[in-house]
């Protein structure tokens, strides 16, 4: 049995909507509404979904950049959601984040050296000379050169900046890296370089990744297991291969069939979903997907399907797979 590094249980984030002159709460946006998953040591867990499904909010809550409204997050068996600031800072040494926008996530006024050194200063690791040495080491690890240390972010291309972001995340030897759309701002040829780098680093350093992305091809490539999110919930979760070859939830099936494949001869029966994703401030009753689901039944509009294991290691939340109903 694999060892769990991070356990997330019934995590929720509800944002209040304020309105009127008195700023009273007039509603809630249920950005994340009960997400449960476990990350094992050394694996890559991919979280996919369309915009607004809550995948980034989930990632930010795990770092406690956002305070969860409800739920538990256990990191190495330690409850994270109740930690005070000091202990939290300590813990963040083990969890680092790589952000989407390589242009906005690096301070333009700092040299690369200062950017990568900062986490080392925050966590009081090493003296000045050691830190400098470590920065140069890190630059080499991510495929840049030591002489890049004195330059500023604007002197780098998008792919190189993302490498700097990765070097910064690696600086404090984290156990877990949360990567939020790390390659979506990059060109295809550069995207492949960064994905390969992430894979190499995982092998060498034994890292665990939570990989958040909307690109299903990228997620398949890098992930060992995948969770598919829709309107704040995970609707299906399985081993990567299993999920892509034998998806169970109608949303996953539609999502996979919607991806354009770079092969003009590839014939396929495309499931085209009608309509848009409903607003998370006013989600549909019952199964949140029933308004767009091609296989919706009567029960779907009234009863929320339970997220359950239908085959070993394969979880889904869909009434189609509840024997007593079918």
């Amino acid at each position, binding site marked *: 049995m694999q060892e769990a590094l991070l356990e997330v249980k019934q995590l929720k984030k509800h944002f209040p909507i304020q309105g009127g002159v008195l700023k009273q709460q007039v509603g809630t946006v249920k950005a994340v509404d009960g997400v449960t998953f476990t990350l094992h040591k050394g694996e890559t867990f991919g979280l996919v979904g369309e915009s607004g499904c809550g995948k980034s909010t989930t990632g930010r809550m795990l770092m406690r950049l956002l305070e969860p409204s409800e739920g538990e997050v256990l990191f190495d068996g330690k409850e994270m959601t109740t930690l005070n600031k000091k202990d939290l800072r300590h813990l963040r040494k083990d969890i680092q984040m790589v952000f989407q926008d390589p242009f906005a996530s690096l301070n333009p006024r700092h040299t690369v050296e200062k950017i990568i050194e900062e986490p080392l200063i925050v966590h009081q690791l090493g003296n000045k000379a050691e830190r400098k040495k470590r920065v140069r080491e890190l630059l080499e690890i991510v495929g840049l050169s030591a002489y890049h240390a004195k330059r500023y972010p604007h002197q780098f291309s998008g792919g190189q900046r993302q490498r700097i972001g990765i070097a910064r995340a690696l600086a404090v030897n984290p156990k877990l890296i949360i990567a939020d759309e790390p390659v979506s701002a990059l060109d*295809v040829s550069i995207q492949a*370089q960064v*994905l*390969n780098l992430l*894979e190499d680093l995982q092998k060498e350093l034994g890292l665990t990744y939570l990989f958040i992305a909307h690109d*299903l091809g990228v997620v398949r490539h890098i992930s060992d297991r995948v969770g598919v999110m829709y309107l704040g919930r995970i609707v299906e979760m399985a081993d990567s291969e299993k999920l892509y070859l034998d998806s169970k939830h109608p949303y996953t099936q539609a999502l996979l069939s919607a991806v*354009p494949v770079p092969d003009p001869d590839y014939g396929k029966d495309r499931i085209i979903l009608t309509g*848009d994703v409903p607003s998370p401030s006013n989600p549909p009753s019952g199964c949140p997907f029933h308004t767009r689901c091609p296989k919706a039944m009567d029960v779907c509009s009234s009863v929320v399907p339970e997220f359950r294991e239908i085959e070993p290691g394969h979880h889904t939340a869909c009434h189609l797979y509840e024997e007593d109903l079918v």
Partner: protein
Amino acid sequence: MEQPVLKVSGLETHFFTDDGEIPAVDSVDFYVNKGEVLGIVGESGSGKSVTSLSIMQLIQAPGKVVGGEITYKGENLIAKSEKEMRKIRGNEIGMIFQEPMTSLNPVFRIGNQLIEGIRIHKKWNKKKAWEHAVSILKLVGLPRAEELMNEYPHQLSGGMRQRVMIAMAMACEPEVLIADEPTTALDVTIQAQILELMKKLNKETNTSIIMITHDLGVVAEICDRIAVMYSGKIVEQGKTQDIFQHPKHPYTIGLIESVPDVRVRKDRLYSIPGNVPKPGSIHKGCHFAPRCSFAFDKCYEENPMLLEAGPAQQARCWLHEDAEKAAVLERVKS
């Protein structure tokens, strides 16, 4: 022999910046036939958007079209005055932009924005233009078309806005539709809807489409022919099937191989080393040579022209001077 609707030959668009003259589009040739979908693929900075803006004569200072011809229905668009161009833009050649959020005016109702172009080009009265606009909204698959006419852009979702943009571009029944990354800002399930719609419009109205995108999947899905751009030049062109099955330019091969496929998991992604050159960086020889694993001496000396690389397929690569050398590419592919 089919007569192309739009033909671009030797197009040169340069930007006159403080750092000197930058050739963003460098002697680009292509054509699109009646009812055909042509894809222009390239990464950021390859010049694909500048090409589309050049066709519409929408290049703004410091950019300028400095050479070449754009022939539409036997007339050169570059020689046209601004007044004449206005009659063509939106009427004969329609355009869809990437950002459906920013290309609609937030303070005008959808209806007003839609009929503006129709009234100008068709010289119809308001009532007739309104009715036509409603029918176009229905054509692009928008529900409650009449109500939508009185709504503002912010009341619509991204996918609906892009449908409105397509409706606007299609309203005057253009001969050619230029779509610049029309689905890039959309989610996959919405993207699938929009691509399906564009295919349908192409079939039903026989409108030619120039599809500009960075996404090879989108191109494979919808295009009949493809032109691949790199660093301001077309490096390969041919039929979609030929290009995906037998790419003849090392860059195209690298591009196709580096896309993670949703159907099969590759052990390791192929990646093209190095970075996309900045437009305007000075090169001698082939622009792709520094990143190319097949480059030989000549590549660093002389810039290749488009060479025949197969039936109806050309590649800008010196390997195709010699059939024996070109065989290397086939081996890599398999």
